[in-house]
């Protein structure tokens, strides 16, 4: 099977700022790839270059076997980050127009438009003007316009931004459905949780550099757990004994529990047994690193200051926190 997208040494600068630096990337056909990184990392620029909306200063790009996405436009569904609708146009007419523009045959189908609208729970808006819809509804319409022509490759730039959890789940299922259909999906997000839920492969980009390019499973193995969450059976029990255990480096107290850091190379199973023996526990849990942890760890190795790390963490969580709150 050939690759859906390959990037080879791609660099793009705007004035003096390097947006993307010497990026190599391979997306195999049929995969679901997450493209993650904080705001301003270069995700959108990379995607725009893949779509031949921007052109790289140097390097090669190949999309679905073509040198430019322009030659394969009808086989690609692209949901840009900056997206809108024709305010005065009716929803049905807009989707028909988009399908007509995107299909080789140049035809649109009313029944297909209705089918999609029903699928996202908006069957009754076909004859409404786009400006009458709420933001979340508009976003669903935009997603339909991306996938209505059943493209081989879907490129989604921040598809979930601004959605409530219910609609996020709905859209996530639609993305996964496209994946099952056999389409290659690339989507970018700055919220790591979303990537963890959907993709099987993650590309992490920070400040124009690719810092990670691996499958989720491999990533989890590579960044093996070094932290154990611990709650004592008795409230306020003395946990000093834990510090003297051979595999433990440090114990820190958080509001709800203790976090026990393990020595590099120690066996987590062995450590858990030692801990339970030392202090009776109501909860002992191996803490799996989130993508956020991994990302922060990678950036830390690059020698960033504590303050910028805090900002980074905040940026990676903002969206999900808002989602949970609503």
């Amino acid at each position, binding site marked *: 099977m050939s690759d859906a997208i390959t990037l080879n040494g791609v660099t793009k600068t705007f004035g003096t700022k390097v947006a993307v630096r010497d990026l190599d990337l391979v997306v195999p056909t049929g995969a679901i790839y997450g493209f993650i990184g904080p705001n301003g990392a270069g995700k959108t620029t990379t995607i725009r270059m893949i779509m031949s909306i921007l052109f790289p200063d140097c390097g090669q790009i190949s999309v679905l076997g073509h040198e430019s996405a322009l030659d394969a436009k009808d086989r690609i569904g692209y949901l*840009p*980050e900056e997206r*809108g*609708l024709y305010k005065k146009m009716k929803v049905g007419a807009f989707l028909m127009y988009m399908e007509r*523009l*995107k299909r080789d045959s*140049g035809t649109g189908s009313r029944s297909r438009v209705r089918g999609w609208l029903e699928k996202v729970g908006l069957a009754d808006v076909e004859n409404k003007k786009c400006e009458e819809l709420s933001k979340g509804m508009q976003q669903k319409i935009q997603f339909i*316009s*991306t996938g209505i022509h059943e493209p081989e490759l879907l490129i989604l730039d921040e598809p979930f931004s601004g959605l409530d959890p219910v609609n996020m789940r709905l859209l996530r299922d639609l993305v996964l459905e496209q994946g099952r259909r056999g389409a290659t999906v690339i989507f970018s997000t700055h919220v790591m949780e979303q990537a963890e839920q959907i993709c099987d492969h993650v590309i992490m980009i920070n400040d124009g550099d690719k810092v990670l390019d691996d499958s989720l499973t491999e990533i989890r193995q590579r960044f093996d757990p070094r932290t154990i969450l611990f709650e004592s059976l008795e409230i306020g029990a003395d946990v000093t004994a834990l510090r003297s255990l051979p595999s433990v480096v440090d114990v820190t107290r958080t509001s709800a529990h203790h976090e026990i850091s393990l020595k590099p190379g120690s066996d987590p199973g062995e450590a858990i047994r030692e801990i339970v023996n030392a202090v009776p526990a109501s909860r002992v849990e191996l803490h799996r690193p989130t993508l956020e942890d991994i990302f922060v760890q990678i950036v830390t190795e690059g020698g960033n200051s504590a303050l910028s790390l805090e900002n980074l963490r905040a940026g990676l969580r903002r969206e999900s926190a808002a989602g949970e709150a609503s």
Partner: protein
Amino acid sequence: MKKILHVALREFLSTVLTKGFILGVLVTPALIGFMVIMMPMLMNEEPPRIEGEVAVIDPTGEIVQGLAAYLKPEAIAERRSETQAKAKEVMEQIPGGAANAAMAQPSLDALLGDVPDLDIVKIDSGYDLDAEKDRLIGGESGPESRLALITVHPDAVRRVEGEETFGAYDLFVREKLDDRIIDEIRRGMRTTIVDSRIRQTDLDRATIEALTRVPRISSTTVTETGEKETNEVLNMLLPAGFMILLLISVMTGGQYLLTTTVEEKSSRVVEVLLSAVSPMQLMTGKILGQMGVGLVILALYAGMGVAGLVSFAMLGLLDLSLLFYLLIFYVIAYFVMASMMAAIGAAVNEMREAQTLMTPVMVTLMIPWMLWLPITRNPNSLFATITSFIPPINTFVMLLRMTSTSPPPMWQVWVTIGIGLLSVWGALWFAAKVFRVGLLMFGKPPNFATLIKWVKMA
């Protein structure tokens, strides 16, 4: 190609099928129709009959009688009917004017107004000028009210020894006196004074009138196809009509193109579109769609113009091949204009920001207005020839020249078309580059220097 047509079709329909467009296109002719119907009705409204006295201080003693005779109501009425007869005669000479003359009849009556009843009062010596003037003040009307005061200069009829010129008279009038009355008084004074002066000499008035009278002759244009009476008014208006038609249709399409491009950009639908079509396809589609809009306007207004000429039986005055050139010039002028509008629309974030960039385009479009008179008067001057080769005004100037009385040689027309096509190519090239870069640029509105930078960048 199919995509371009889809874009063009959407652009055309979404413009033409809006209330704003339909109203805008229909309102202008409706207004003109309204004026045509309403104007005579408004003018038929009869002004009130004016009565009052005209006081004359006349040291020469030779004026009052003549003036009184001239301003007698019967005399005024007689002169008016003569004027009317003359006007009718003139109207009938103009092709298609007979119908107009009949239509104009009642309003001409109204224009002259009801015949005034003026009482000429002679003021004898021993008067107080200021007191007499004071009688002009005050608004009451009636046969007793004073409308005007005339003081004749003592040397108005007989020259002072050694002087070259005669004296005249001073005229004082009350506030808001109908200017038609003032005109009557002036003409009456002129006639009476001249009569009196002539009586002082050995000449007789009839002879002098016969000597000085040369009627105004309308000119006859000699052409290959025969002789026809020159219609000077139409000769001036025809070029203007064609130029306005070209300007309006080019402007409408261009303006809509700018608006829709800015809208697409500010509503962020543009990148969604760019996922389906290339910037070049999008721009071409939009330009073609709005060209259709301009053509609708052109066809509508040109059709109305031709229909108007037909109804007045004046179609013979119009060389129909001009309509063909109008179409060619429209396409050229529109493409240049539309390219600029597309580039500006893509460069800015909202309409407000477009204004600064629009100014040079608007100023350029003003130039044909300024050139209208000099070029129609002198359509083959060096100036006219040169300006008809300079884009982007070349098409407008050439149209003015072609519709004038002495059209330019055909080779010049084709040079203009050739230069026009080159300028279309250049404008599209520029616009395509700016359009591609500008569409996805948000933030500070660019100036022309930035646009040039984008062109180099793209």
